[in-house]
């Protein structure tokens, strides 16, 4: 009798908890979906109006589908103006700066974690403290230094600054990975008479390829979107990257919303496509890079 009673009471409690948790989960999902809608809505709207003409943008509801998608908006902005030049500048400057950063960053991280020398922790500290320094505080002297050596309006001014300012976060992400790397392989290689250079190139660099990919992607995102240095250092259209080029270009099209939308879409598509294919790596990389800070 007694035992049945308890089982009963237990059963009632359980079903009650079931209802509560179902309600709870629905509520949780509602919150998550609302946040997702807020994050996506402006972008969906952008995609839609990039495929409309002004009349459709202004007279139809904002989220109405573009019935006859006007792809000519894209063709128009790509061929008129300098968008193609800006685009390829963005591509090669991003790639060059990213490659330099991960290679130089790997060399430093290797020397700091694997090699034995006085001052290694001091040098590492110099790189880490640089992370706290606002780029704006270096803007005026960098501008005057680059003018003095003839590097203003030169892509090298961008590449050098991107490499320097992305070096700390790159080393920080690599560091955790290097510390976890087993030393046995390298020890065996040294006993066999392998030189440090060969060991770095043939053993360590390939072993770290996954974390290098992560840091490379994070570097790419930063470099592709960088604004203030391009805006300050580069004045001629031949060297501008998309971020600043798009800004000037839109000035000429203030009333053609379809053209503006298409220009913006072109400037964000490469990152969105990269994200579509490599989102796990990017998400993990950003999480790893920031939590350790």
């Amino acid at each position, binding site marked *: 009798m007694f035992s049945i009673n308890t089982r009963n009471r237990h059963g009632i409690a359980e079903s009650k908890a079931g209802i509560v948790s179902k309600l709870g989960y629905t509520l949780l999902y509602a*919150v998550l979906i609302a946040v997702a809608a807020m994050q996506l809505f402006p972008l969906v709207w952008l995609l839609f109006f990039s495929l409309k003409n002004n009349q459709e943008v202004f007279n139809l509801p904002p989220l109405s589908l573009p019935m006859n998608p006007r792809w000519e908006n894209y063709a128009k902005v790509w061929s008129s103006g300098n968008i193609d030049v800006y685009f390829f500048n963005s591509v090669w400057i991003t790639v060059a700066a990213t490659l330099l950063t991960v290679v130089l960053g790997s060399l430093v991280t290797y020397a700091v974690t694997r090699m034995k020398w006085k001052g290694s922790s001091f040098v590492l500290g110099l790189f880490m403290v640089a992370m706290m320094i606002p780029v704006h505080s270096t803007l005026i002297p960098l501008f005057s230094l680059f003018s003095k050596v003839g590097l203003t309006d030169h892509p090298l001014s961008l590449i050098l600054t991107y490499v320097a300012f992305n070096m700390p976060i790159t080393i920080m992400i690599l560091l955790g990975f290097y510390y976890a790397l087993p030393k046995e392989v390298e020890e065996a290689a*040294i006993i066999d008479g392998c030189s440090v250079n060969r060991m770095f190139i043939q053993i360590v660099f390939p072993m770290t390829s996954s974390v290098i990919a992560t840091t490379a992607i994070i570097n790419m995102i930063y470099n592709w979107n960088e604004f203030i240095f391009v805006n300050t250092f580069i004045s001629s259209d031949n060297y501008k990257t998309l971020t600043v080029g798009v800004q000037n270009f839109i000035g000429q099209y203030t009333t053609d919303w379809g053209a503006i939308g298409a220009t913006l879409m072109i400037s964000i598509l490469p990152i969105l496509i990269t994200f579509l294919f490599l989102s796990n790596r990017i998400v993990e990389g950003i999480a790893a890079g920031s939590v350790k800070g």
Partner: protein
Amino acid sequence: MDKVLSNKKIIALYVLPSLLLILAIVYIPIVLTAYYGLNDWNGIGAMTFVGLDNYMALFVDATFWNSAGHSLLLALFSGISLILYLVVAMVLAAKIKGANLFRKIYLIPMLLSSVAIAQLWLKIYHPTNGVLNSVLESLGVANPPAWLAESSLVLYALFIPILWQYAGFYILIYYAALKNIPASLEEAAKIDGANALQIAWKIKLPLVMEVIKVTIVLAVVGSLKYFDLIFVMTDGGPNGSSEVMASYMYHQAFRAYDFGYGSAIGFFLLVICLAVTWVIRKLTATKDTIQYS
């Protein structure tokens, strides 16, 4: 083996290029910023040493203190929204199906360039054709405001896209930290009769406290030096009502050609960022860190 790994030439080869670069691009410019701030200089002609005049002028410059106030307000808003992001991350980490998809969607705005985001939100806020006012009008609001043209509204209108841009980043950091908490702790608490709120407040929150401190520093310092969206969307206007410290520095140096004064602002920005980092770290320092691994 130690001999191989302490080869001075190789260490120099690996470390020096990056070290010289970071000294030239980050550390030397900081020293120069402080020095330029002691001079009267238009960026081209000769410098005249004026001692602390620029720094003194800074303290009685009402426009500067207004912009500092705006930066501080942004820091306050960013700090408060961290609570919201933490709640969303807790929901996301509560064994929810599709959590991975949600955190990826949330991150998308953070991948886009500030110029694209700024242009997009300029369109959202457009007084006659923007999404926001179209929706308000369809809801029966007769004269919706011109969000970015009214000095009492512009700052708050700018905060929304800034918070929107970084929401996914902080949610991701919190999510990663929460996922690091071993499930056994939560199970043990449940057996002891703790409800979801108690588990969140008394178990999860203390365990992610270290990460919360990092995000507070990131959010506050990031806000104090914030520049991009404000520069593109309003350029500090109307009438300085959305000017922040970094944009004021830019205007003084590159528009008013007062590089000395601009540098003084730049140096102040650096000092305040480092000081705030230090103060937040001190205030939130705990003697015993909780171990849970």
